């Protein structure tokens, strides 16, 4: 302890080597006043046998990085987020295997619902089904009420419009999964609800999180503003979407729909809407100049088709093709069950075109046509394929706005049925 003296023998970068009077060679830290070889210096006795500080720093940084890395690797990575606005607002994070790895409520009701319904580590479709069932059970979705389910899918990996790749497939899968499972559950429960599946990119989701709303609501607010309807942040957070609809006098489906025409080349804005309980005059008219008085109606298959197209503008890979086919088949079966559901509901059926004559056979035929059309991936061939059976407006619409999907397949079906 205490101070001792030494003769400097060698000077290093941060230290110097001294020899002490009693014959010890020591490495001591450099005195601040500077030092020369041959000078006697006074140093503190407990000599710091310094490790190379840089090595130590590098090593510790590496340890931290490694720890962080392994930690990250251990944690499942979310590949997509699905935000649900029923009125309980929820956000589900989905991993590569379509499993729900985290679920959180974005508002109070959402939090309550998450506590009651355990969806963690469930497959996405089951989880969504559970949630919808939970909503029905706890009377967030009530029969006879104008229910709205707004689902927003966000690709967690890429911010930009997705290119054709695996992730794309994945997101589409999530998309379809959300769509079908919600649809199924709604129909099974017999509670009528309007389903809108929107797509938000990562930026939008972040912004939405900053405003502590769901991406769906955020998109809604933005689109509403575009159409001249102002929704304040406050209202966006507090009010249910349906209430807002009434208050501000707009249609969600319409708003989310109108995103499409001017964002043709950014397919992640694509929306699917399904409005079983809507009268046709409520559906949007994407191309009013072309058809000022007639509402555009599409079959659900048309819709899916157009989604596919806009998602994959050039050509469809065989895998995708298969996938969509499967989807369509699934949806076909959905449809029949939905039709049953509708019977009970007795919703106002628009222009009265809707009828129960939507026969499976007919749908199949249509499906085939759609498929072939898809393979050609041109609207013209599609027109040809559909020419005889589909509505003339379709053609006009497609040539005008390719890939734009519209709503109300039921009335569409009805149309077709009538024509047939």
């Amino acid at each position: 302890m205490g101070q001792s003296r030494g003769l400097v023998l060698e000077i290093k970068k941060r230290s110097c080597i001294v020899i002490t009077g009693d014959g010890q060679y020591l490495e001591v830290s450099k005195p601040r006043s500077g030092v020369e070889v041959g000078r006697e210096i006074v140093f503190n006795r407990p000599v710091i046998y310094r490790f190379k500080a840089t090595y130590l720093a590098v090593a510790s940084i590496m340890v931290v990085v490694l720890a962080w890395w392994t930690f990250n690797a251990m944690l499942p990575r979310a590949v997509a987020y699905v935000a649900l606005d029923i009125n309980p607002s929820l956000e589900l994070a989905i991993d590569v295997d379509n499993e729900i790895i985290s679920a959180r409520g974005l508002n109070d009701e959402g939090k309550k619902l998450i506590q009651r319904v355990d969806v963690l580590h469930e497959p996405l479709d089951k989880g969504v089904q559970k949630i919808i069932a939970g909503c029905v059970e706890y009377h967030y979705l009530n029969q006879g009420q104008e229910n709205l389910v707004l689902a927003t899918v966000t690709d967690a990996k890429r911010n930009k419009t997705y290119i054709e790749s695996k992730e794309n497939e994945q997101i589409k899968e999530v998309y379809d999964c959300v769509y079908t499972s919600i649809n199924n559950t709604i129909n099974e429960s017999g509670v009528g609800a309007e389903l809108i599946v929107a797509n938000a990119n990562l930026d939008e989701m972040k912004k939405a999180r900053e405003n502590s709303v769901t991406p769906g609501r955020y998109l809604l607010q933005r689109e509403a503003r575009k159409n001249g309807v102002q929704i304040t942040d406050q209202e966006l957070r507090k009010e249910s979407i349906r209430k807002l609809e009434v208050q501000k006098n707009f249609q969600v489906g319409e708003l989310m729909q109108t995103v499409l025409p001017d964002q043709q080349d950014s397919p992640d804005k694509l929306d699917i809407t399904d409005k079983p309980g809507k009268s046709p005059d409520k559906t949007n008219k994407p191309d009013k100049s072309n058809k000022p008085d007639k509402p555009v109606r599409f079959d659900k298959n048309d819709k899916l088709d157009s989604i596919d197209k806009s998602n994959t503008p050039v050509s469809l890979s065989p895998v995708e093709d298969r996938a969509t086919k499967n989807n369509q088949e699934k949806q076909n079966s959905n449809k029949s069950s939905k039709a049953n559901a509708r019977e009970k509901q007795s919703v106002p059926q628009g222009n009265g075109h809707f009828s129960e004559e939507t026969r499976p056979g007919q749908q199949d035929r249509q499906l085939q046509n759609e498929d072939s059309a898809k393979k050609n991936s041109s609207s013209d061939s599609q027109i040809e394929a559909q020419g005889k059976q589909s509505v003339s407006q379709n053609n006009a619409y497609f040539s005008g706005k390719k890939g734009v999907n519209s709503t109300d397949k039921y009335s569409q079906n009805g149309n077709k049925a009538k024509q047939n």
Partner: protein
Amino acid sequence: MEQHQEECGSVLFGDELEVCLQNIKEGDESSREKFIADAKPFIAGVVGRLCGRSLSWERDDELSIGLIAFNEAIDRFKEKMGVPFTAFARMVIRSRVTDYLRKETRWNRVELHMSEGPQESTISQVENDASLERYIKETANRERIEEIKDYNLKITRLGITFQELVKSSPKHRDTRETLIRAACYIVEHSSLYDTLQVSKRLPMREVEMGTGISRKVLERGRKYIIGIAVLLYHREEYIYLNSYVRLPQGGAD
């Protein structure tokens, strides 16, 4: 005589030096005589190195000059100079002999122009206390640095660095003293030191036999022993280092 010379080392570099000088200062002429006689090999070494040839007391004036200079150094040495006496003596010897050699060459070249003038002036200059002190300090610093550099060179030649010496330097005083004893043993038996220089390895067996220090300890402190041995062996050269590091002299015996 040989025995005497052996002793000189201890007088000139040992702990008794200060006592001895003190005695001389107080007017003990006999001890002055003895001290100078003891220092003869040292003087011969310094002058010989300066002239670059071996000298004999009978033939060469340089040695006499050195002897006179050494005597002068005893008188002029003061503790507060901050320089070990040996170093100071060396300085004085060197400067005097250099002066002599310069005069010699002048004598040889232009004998007619020999004059006492310049020498007088140099003396008066040296005599000037302030400048003398500064001169001594500067010389001491320079010499010390040179010494350390030379020491570094010598141990590097034996494959040792200061860094390694730091690592092998024992923390406990007992161990240190044991190792220093081993180093002294090597220095005292110059044949062992020569083996060390040639083989760059510690003559383990001999040291073990001679000192009775266990092989394990020797092995562990190998580098430290070599470092200290080099330092001790060049006692006359590494004046500053040796005067700074007060090692137990001749501890082995």
